């Protein structure tokens, strides 16, 4: 199933459009659902108090965990819900699972729902893996006989054949999550709800987990998962939703949501450090911009056109042969290009204090549609170079065009012929 890709825009303008389904009838339909918790000021009352003061009303605060959320999730869709702690994402998941009843609105589902929302729930540390797998299967709604039949498969997947009769309390945490994942994945529900943990264990097992997710995806299962891990959200999800204080902030393409989440979380993008101005040298970066082939300043650019990364440096001291550099990053902080003057020009020259210098680095625009950020810097020459000035993410450009799904759209020469 191809990832839905939309042109990236600055505002969450795509929200309305993305509420619509990417095809297929909805597997989950959430209609104006609200959930409010009552939080009593006193955690627990006692019967004694109730008998002695029958008329005293207990004070409580209301927590609106989920506020009037409507959305549809299509059959076969991989849907991510992201948000900070306490944003209501897990509550919404529990409402879908039927663990919490909703106060308003209704939730309908088509197909069998896995009753689990977390890995390893109900594991008993004093029992062996064999017992736990069987018990868990029964909780999933599988009959005892079916559970026995699948047992070997589960253990083989978890790679725990030698430890089947070991009590779980003697398991390492890695073994435990492997067993939990293997148990949860065997369920033949059409709709899976997963809270948090996606990829677990060591690198090799993680790869296996990912393969399982792709298998589930291929089999057309509907999966809703709640995560803090933007990497898995972007890797697996067709769509994602960002929640904050019980509201749906934005819904759409996982990358857009991932960025919005980072913004919300850190108030800035993940790699954005506060501006570093090298005050001691007195050198500063006065301005930075992207420019088109004609030298015009641009904030958006089309693919194919060449793009220049430009900035203006004002030197605060005499400098011999400084190194100018322009670093281009994605919004998630992946570095795409580091263009340095010392690699592409023999010498930059010598500059006096108070002098202003324009640096420009032209690159072919093979970038995939997204927003990119420019970090200009200037440093003293030589090994152990010292930064004179650097401003993180000083300016940005939005690239329009088509995408094949990679991070670069390199020119490709296709040749297909009979061998």
């Amino acid at each position, binding site marked *: 199933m191809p990832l839905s890709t939309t042109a990236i825009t600055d505002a969450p303008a795509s929200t309305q459009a993305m509420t619509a389904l990417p095809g297929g009838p909805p*597997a989950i339909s959430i209609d104006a659902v609200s959930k409010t918790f009552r939080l009593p000021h006193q955690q627990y009352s006692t019967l004694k108090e109730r008998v002695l003061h029958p008329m005293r009303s207990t004070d409580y605060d209301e927590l609106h965990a989920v506020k009037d959320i409507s959305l549809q999730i299509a059959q076969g869709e991989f849907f991510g819900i992201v948000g900070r702690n306490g944003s209501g994402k897990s509550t919404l998941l529990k409402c879908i699972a039927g663990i919490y009843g909703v106060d308003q609105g209704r939730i309908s589902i088509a197909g069998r729902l896995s009753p689990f929302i977390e890995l390893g729930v109900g594991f008993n540390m004093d029992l062996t893996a064999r017992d736990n797998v069987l018990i868990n299967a029964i909780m999933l709604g599988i009959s005892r006989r079916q559970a026995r039949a699948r047992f070997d498969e589960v253990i083989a997947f978890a790679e725990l054949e030698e430890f089947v009769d070991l009590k779980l309390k003697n398991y390492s945490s890695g073994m435990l999550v492997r067993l939990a994942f293997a148990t949860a994945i065997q369920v033949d529900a059409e709709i899976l709800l997963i809270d948090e943990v996606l990829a677990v264990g060591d690198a090799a097992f993680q790869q296996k987990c990912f393969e399982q997710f792709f298998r589930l995806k291929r089999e057309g299962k509907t999966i809703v998962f709640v995560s803090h891990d933007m990497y898995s959200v972007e890797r697996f999800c067709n769509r994602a939703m960002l929640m904050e204080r019980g509201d749906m902030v934005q819904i759409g393409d996982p990358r857009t949501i991932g960025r919005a989440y980072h913004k919300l979380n850190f108030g800035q993008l993940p790699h954005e450090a506060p501006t570093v101005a090298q005050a001691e040298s007195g050198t500063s970066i006065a301005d930075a911009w992207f420019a088109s082939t004609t030298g015009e300043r641009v904030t958006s650019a089309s693919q194919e056109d060449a793009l220049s990364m430009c900035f203006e440096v004002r030197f605060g001291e005499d400098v011999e042969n400084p190194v100018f550099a322009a670093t281009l990053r994605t919004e998630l902080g992946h570095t795409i290009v580091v263009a340095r003057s010392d690699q592409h020009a023999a010498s930059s020259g010598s500059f006096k204090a108070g002098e202003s210098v324009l640096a420009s680095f032209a690159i072919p625009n093979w970038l995939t549609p997204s927003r990119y950020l420019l970090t200009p810097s200037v440093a003293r020459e030589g090994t152990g170079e010292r930064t004179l000035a650097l401003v993180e993410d000083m300016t940005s450009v939005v690239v329009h065009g088509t995408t094949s799904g990679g991070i670069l759209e390199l020119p490709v020469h296709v040749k297909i012929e009979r061998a």
Partner: protein
Amino acid sequence: MSTSSGVRLPVPRLAPSSHRVHGPSALGSDLHRFWSLTFTLARTEFKLRFYGSVLGYVWTLVRPLLLFGVLWVFFTKVGHVNSQKDPGEKFYGAQLLGSIVLFTFFAEATTGAVRSVVDRENLVRKIHFPRLVIPLSVVLLALFNLGLNLIVVAVFALSAGVHPMLSWLELPLIIAALIVFATGMAMLLSAMFVHFRDIQPIWEVLSQILFYASPVIISIQTVILRLSPTMLHVYMLNPLAVIFQQFRHAMITNATPSAGAVLGSWSSLVGALAIVVAIFAIGFAVFNRAAARIAENL
């Protein structure tokens, strides 16, 4: 399907198999899954006790046996009980053991149920399943133990000289009444404990009172002799008193009167029966009402 005109999208029709998600309930919709879950939880607990320690099951038997041993020595060697003089105290040891075993079941089922829902918090908050499974599995676990303990009672009684009687056929009915009463209390207590954390000490005291207010240590003849007819009626309002006395009559010896004979007629037992039914009904109603919100109130 996409639209940009409306604020709220038209709701697409779900697949024909779609159904509404309901919040948690006491019984759920799938009775088969309900029983299979109850059985699995009880079986797991049982297994843990059975294989959990070196002596395993012995420990679950030690407590009632120890209590029995102390009481038996005290009342036959030190106290006033004399089986030769009083026909009602014939097979006193077997009668005492029988009542202790029945009371142990009741105590295990109810005091075990009090904390059960709260202690299984991780399941309640993370899996969608009928909530009643939890207290019922506690009752079922106690029932497994009762089954094993009753074998001990039978062996003890037979070796003491009790002959198998036709009235043993009454036993399933007597046990069933005890189960209904214990289940009613289990539902009531476990649901109330979610809100009122002082239920646990309160119930511990109350169940001790019930122990002494039932024919466990004393024989019913002593009770009949000491109490006024009105107080005797009050005494026999206690469902445990009725159940234990009928058990002694049917299982151990006909020399001790049946529960009906204590008050003169079976119809006077209607009060105790009404209490059992009422506790069960109230227990279910309270639990059923709490079930929907147990997960969020923990």
